[in-house]
């Protein structure tokens, strides 16, 4: 990281600023009313003006997201462990796991509401259901990808199954686990907002819905902006934890890269 890492974001930053500038100029120079398509500066202004209300909703969404991610991580790890027990459990569980992902959330979310009410629970559950799959699959694949030659070496040293898991396979699976976690982090905030959208009292999803219903489009955009920033922050947080937890992985990657 340091300067070189930040410089790596340069092109993306330039592109984003360019697109926003185009957007701003286009709206200002054309006949479009800002009430229909607000300008980027107008969105930021509206966000600042309404921050006291938006911040409350943001905190609610953040709480759901973090709880959901924590539950998804536990569930993902548990499933990865089950997949890893034997080829039999893998063959039994894997197809069901993939099938579970074909259930449309738009059909499931209202049911969760009916079963578990309008409180925090169903939203956390929606986030969990969105996020556990990439974690479980990435972690299970990471465990399964241990070098067979390395396993042979361990057997020649009379290592037990647990030692092989603890000393070699688990640490070796950590980079995959973090990849899954990063994917989950990008989904998670959207998942929470979707859960709120279906029914609730508080959160960015509710705020967006209310703003849209009252045709205050600039506030819908303000909520979208907060959502994007929140997702990026979570993604960054996971990457930061990975860097701290796996110093060896990043020193290796730098060398290869």
């Amino acid at each position, binding site marked *: 990281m340091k300067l070189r890492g930040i410089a790596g974001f340069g092109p993306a930053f330039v592109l984003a600023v360019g697109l926003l500038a185009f957007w701003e100029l286009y709206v200002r120079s054309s006949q479009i009313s800002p009430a229909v398509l607000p300008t980027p500066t107008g969105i930021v202004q509206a966000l600042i003006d309404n921050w006291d209300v938006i911040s409350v909703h943001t905190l609610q969404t953040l709480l759901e997201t973090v709880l959901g991610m924590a539950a998804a991580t536990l569930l993902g790890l548990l499933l990865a462990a089950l997949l890893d027990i034997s080829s039999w459990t893998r063959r039994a569980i894997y197809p069901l796991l993939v099938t579970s992902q074909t259930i449309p959330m738009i059909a499931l979310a209202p049911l969760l509401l009916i079963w578990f009410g309008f409180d925090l629970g169903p939203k956390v559950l929606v986030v969990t259901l969105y996020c556990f799959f990439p974690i479980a699959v990435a972690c299970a694949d990471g465990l399964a990808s241990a070098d067979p*030659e390395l396993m042979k070496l361990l057997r*020649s040293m009379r290592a037990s199954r647990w030692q092989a898991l603890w*000393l070699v396979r688990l*640490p070796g699976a950590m980079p995959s686990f973090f990849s899954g976690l990063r994917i989950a982090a990008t989904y998670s905030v959207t998942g929470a907002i979707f859960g709120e959208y279906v029914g609730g009292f508080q959160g960015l999803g509710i705020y967006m819905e209310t703003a849209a219903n009252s045709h205050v489009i600039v506030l819908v955009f303000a909520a979208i902006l907060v959502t994007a920033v929140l997702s990026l922050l979570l993604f960054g947080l996971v990457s930061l934890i990975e860097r701290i937890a*796996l110093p*060896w992985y990043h*020193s*290796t990657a730098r060398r290869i890269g």
Partner: protein
Amino acid sequence: MDPPKLLVQGVTKTYRDGRRSLEALAPIDLAIATGEFVSIIGPSGCGKSTLFNMIAGVEKASSGVIAIDGNAEEARAGKSGYMPQQPLLLPWRTIEENVMLGLDIRHTPRKQAQQEAYELLKRFGLADFAQDYPATLSGGMRQRIALLRTVLFNHDFLLLDEPFGALDALTRLSSQVWLLDLWQEYHASVLFITHDVREAILLSDRIYVFSARPGRVLRIVEVDLPRPRQPVQLAWAQSIQLEQELVTLLLKEQKA
């Protein structure tokens, strides 16, 4: 008289895949006395690595007897220091932690294991790298670290499978001299696989030449060069003659 370090009698290996079966090793007889350095040389796919896996206890022989220290009954895993072709260092462990892997598996207390690993690294001139990660080392260094990991686990009996096969010529030569130093220090019994005739001559007391698959022993050659060995001995007339003999034999097998 003590039993030999390793005795292999009539060992065969046949792989079965459904109806088809592949004979990897014809009956093999082989023996290593305590403190002896013995090499196996042969064309690719002659079953050398299969034999190694069986001696290391990670594969079962289809028939025959393998005895370490005269004991053919007990499980063989853990009774040899087995080093595969790739160094297989764990990237998340420092060099020192990699070297002590075998002690971790034996539940040696961490402090003691660390100390033993460090002493070994120091003795063989690698102490400066103790706290580095493997990714920062060159191929030759990684191979030496893997060898020290093997030695710390078991320095009586080493099974080395082409440890220097992937190294450039100069690094290989310095690694060979380094290995001889290590072998003398521990009076280890060594079984060494190689493709390289000169390497086999420089290092070994005895060379087994294997045939193409199914592998069997074509010839057994005693190497009468005085010890301690020096690379310059490879230029001696008797070495060159032996080298030519073995190369001719192997070329014939390669064609077959």
